[in-house]
């Protein structure tokens, strides 16, 4: 435990109570009230996870997320307003790992953060999966394509691992939500869709015509190297 979190939230009251809550849950928290300042903090320190509000002065949450993803796979949980459905989709497309809608209960946020962090814990007991030039090493938490390492976020990695462990099996979005995101009944299936899109962009030769992760219309996804 004692993971170091970066919280970027502009509302002082929410920032303070969230910091307090996360600290009581056992995290170390660095808080920032401004997008640009938050990004600066992120680049100077070393964080295990970033909690990012969308509406931020100077640089909004999307921009911060985009900047973080430029050179880092650090997990990101967005705080969004449910009124802006658009926010959820954009955030996920930019590489956020999960989101929590405002207003949120602190235990809910803590649960989401822990679920995301759990994904980045290596599982040394798993053997290396080698399929069609794709080498997935659960122990080292690395994926190599043609010998070259591909940078995946913990969520993307866990998603790929779950799919590749049982090739040809069809996974429903609900099952993937449970396996990867630790959601129970009725999570947001857009989490899965967005993560699959991001994963394809990284491991497929042509993400528009995927050869590894196939969409099963109306059901979900299937890993099949053919």
């Amino acid at each position, binding site marked *: 435990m004692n993971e170091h979190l970066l919280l970027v939230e502009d*509302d002082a*009251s*929410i920032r303070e*109570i*969230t910091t*307090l*809550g996360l600290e*009581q849950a056992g995290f170390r928290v660095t808080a920032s009230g401004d997008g640009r300042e938050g990004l600066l903090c992120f680049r100077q320190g070393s964080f295990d996870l970033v909690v990012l509000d969308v509406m931020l002065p100077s640089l909004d949450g999307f921009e911060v997320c985009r900047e973080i993803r430029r050179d880092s796979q650090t997990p990101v949980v967005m705080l969004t*307003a*449910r*009124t802006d*459905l658009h926010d959820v989709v954009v955030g996920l497309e930019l590489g956020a790992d999960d989101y929590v809608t*405002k*207003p*949120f*209960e*602190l*235990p809910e946020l803590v649960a989401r953060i822990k679920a995301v962090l759990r994904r980045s814990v290596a599982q040394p007991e798993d053997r290396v999966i080698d399929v069609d030039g794709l080498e997935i090493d659960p122990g080292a938490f690395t994926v190599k394509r043609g010998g070259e390492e591909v940078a995946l976020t913990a969520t993307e990695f866990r998603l790929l691992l779950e799919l590749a462990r049982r090739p040809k099996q069809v996974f429903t979005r609900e099952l993937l939500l449970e396996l990867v995101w630790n959601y*129970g*009944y*009725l999570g947001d*299936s857009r989490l899965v869709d967005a993560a699959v899109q991001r994963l394809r962009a990284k491991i497929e030769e042509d993400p528009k015509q995927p050869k590894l992760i196939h969409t099963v219309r*109306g059901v979900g996804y299937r890993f099949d190297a053919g």
Partner: protein
Amino acid sequence: MPFRRRLTIAFMLAVGVGAAALALGSYVVVRHNLRADSVHTAAREARRNLEIAPRYKRSDTLLGAYEGRGFETVGVGGGQTFQSSFSVGLAAVPTELRRLVKQGRLAYQRETVAGTHYLVVGGPASDGRELYFFFSEQGLRHELIVLRNILLGGLGIVVLLAALTGALLARRTLRPVAQASLAAHSLAEGLLETRLPVEGRDEFGAWAQAFNEMAAALESKIDALNDAQARERRFTADVAHELRTPLTGLVGEASLLSEHVERMPPESRRPAELLISDVGRLRRLVEELMEISRLEAGAESVHDEEVDLASATAAILRSRGWDGRVRLTAEPAVVTTDPRRYERIVSNLVGNALEHGGDGVDVEVRSDGDGAVVEVADRGPGIPPEHLPHLFDRFYKADPARAGQGSGLGLAIAQENARLLGGEIEVWSEPGEGTRFTLRL
């Protein structure tokens, strides 16, 4: 009967009656003249015949003299009767005519003998013999029949033409009415920009003008109403949106407070508990307000998938911890719908039933043709009929004195979600027996 048809028939009748009167009049005049001519000619012939009669003492020579002149003769004289043909005899001579002839007068009468129409002209010859001349009027009758037929045929054609012309005229006359009726229909369907063409300066033109002014007034009224409603909705959405930031803080603070409430001194503990539960209420209210304003703004999207409502309903009840208090009767009912919205509807309906109807809530799921029916019934006190029409209105509470836990938006949200899924929620209630909500998808 449509006005157009009545107009057509009236026109047809007017023309028809006029033409019939004309035809009848001309027929009567022609008939009268022809018959008068016939009498005139026959009388002249008869006078000549009577003049020459005394030259022929014998009846057979007399008949011989008359032969080939186009009439038959019957004579009475010297105690004997004679006739030029078997077809007509003394019996054929009308008695009235004989009486006049016996009085010494020249007279005529029309008589039908064995189907042949004759003009019988009789008179006394100077030698005392009575002579009767039968002039056939078959030709005359035939001409009159032909004339009658021609007139009838003509009348038929005129009536037919009148009907056609009448129908055309009626259609042209009533076209503005038909257009106005179409325009009114499209107005009723919501095409508020519908206007009528203003043609000419007649009554219809003035009417179209008035109609258009009405439509314009209606359009601007409705636009104004829509604007007001949109403003009101935007305001609701803005309020909910603005409340969210302080609420997020409150919710966070309350959830942190709730972890320490056990260790608080008694005098601050109860207020803290109340604060926490009120923050929860406020949160539900704001979230539902945001949801209803999103639904009303049409900003919500639907993510359809194949869902078995039976297992989905069971899962919803289980996830809310209601499976002990609600009896579920479900048969598999697979429909294409948005499971998230379905959950919203069912949880709102069941939550409402549990709140107002107490325990003993029954949920039934069954397939119905292409769709499915979900019924949520309670055995609570029921809802008085005057409240039923407003049940799905925002913040409507059947009993204002009863402060429920609900925000007053639950049923409105359920109904909006049902409509979004192409369904509808209906309510049945009987005071004393309970309330049943029926969702059709």
